């Protein structure tokens, strides 16, 4: 069993860490979450019926991250996007960001980080991790049709966010 686990699960460590990092923010918390998810994965591995081991692991990481957010940052789970809070935050950070880096990826990172958790999640899974709709549906536990529509909304939000950042820079 340990060998099989090692072969099937450990190769997805980067994916696991990347997702946790995007969902909770800090590197230390992401490490703790991956470690806890890994222990859960070990426990549940007997119930893994083969198939997509990456989606299987990411689902555990995702649920562990959500538990963490629910406990430590419950405000993030409020799905409504609070324009006032976010634009305020970004405006102050923006002055510094201007000095530090103008790189496009930095701009996208900020925009993504400003998105509500569920939008950020679906975009990270699709665009950064490259998961299919079916895999996203497995990881997040929502139906395929819902994956499509939340991805669509998330894209719109990201674009609005990028646009808003641009306007402030002008």
């Amino acid at each position, binding site marked *: 069993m340990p060998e099989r686990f090692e072969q099937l699960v450990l190769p997805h460590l980067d994916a696991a860490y990347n997702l946790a990092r995007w969902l909770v923010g800090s590197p230390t918390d992401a490490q703790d979450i991956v470690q806890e998810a890994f222990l859960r994965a070990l426990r549940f591995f007997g119930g893994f019926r083969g198939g997509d081991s990456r989606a299987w692991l990411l689902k555990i990481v995702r649920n562990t991250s959500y538990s*963490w957010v629910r406990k430590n940052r419950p405000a993030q789970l409020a799905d409504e996007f609070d324009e006032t809070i976010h634009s305020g935050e970004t405006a102050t950070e923006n002055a510094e960001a201007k000095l530090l880096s103008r790189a496009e990826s930095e701009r996208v990172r900020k925009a993504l980080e400003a998105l509500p958790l569920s939008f950020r999640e679906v975009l990270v899974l699709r665009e950064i991790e490259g998961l299919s709709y079916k895999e996203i549906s497995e990881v997040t536990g929502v139906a395929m049709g819902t994956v499509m529509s939340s991805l669509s909304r998330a894209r719109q939000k990201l674009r609005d966010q990028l646009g808003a950042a641009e306007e402030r820079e002008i």
Partner: protein
Amino acid sequence: MDCTLHRHLLEAYLDGELGFERTLEVEAHLASCHICSSEVQSWKDIRAEMQAPELYNRAPEELESKLRKLLPQGRTERTPWFQHWIWAGGGAAFATAVLLMSFVAMRPAPPSPEQDIVTSHVRSLMADHLMDVVSTDQHTVKPWFDGKLDFAPPVQDFATDGYPLAGGRLDYLENRKVAVLIYHRALHIINLYIWPAQDNGSSTMRVQTIHGYNVVSWKKGGFEFRAVSDLNTAELRDLAQLFMP
């Protein structure tokens, strides 16, 4: 200016989720529609930025070595020690047999399902993963399980009897998915585990206490039930009784 192509179709194209024919259709459309083709291009640009290596957080190396240490060790290491006794000479055969027997006797008994259930109960309280669906309405909780399990657990609210339903979640026991209903009794939390029984028979209630938690087990209507709580056994049995009128 208006374009009739559905936005979702365009996105599914962008995500490579369309079949061959649909893909060709959309490509033909893109060739003639500026709105859609610039839409696709603008998203491709954002995607390229998102896929920049700086946005992918690779796991630190120390994390992998930390995790490797958590992997259980294989059973092979124990064998040489064991063989050592087998190799002991003829005169020692009896002693070996005695030792082997005591070795077997000393091994901890395999955990019973009830012990697993208590562990699962404790974890649900600790890990902040008590409920996947929070609702006091049985008509919300029951459909929530649809498609997540290969059976439909009986979901009932007993608020009028003092056992309000608080929600449900999925859990794993002995390598299978089980339904868990969460009930409240005053300040106590009751986890009720439900999975299909081997047959349609019924059984009487059994009560066990493991690590200070009470477990009431019964079988009814083709389902196995295990109610776990720090609640006293009498009240836990009352809840069980509600399930078998």
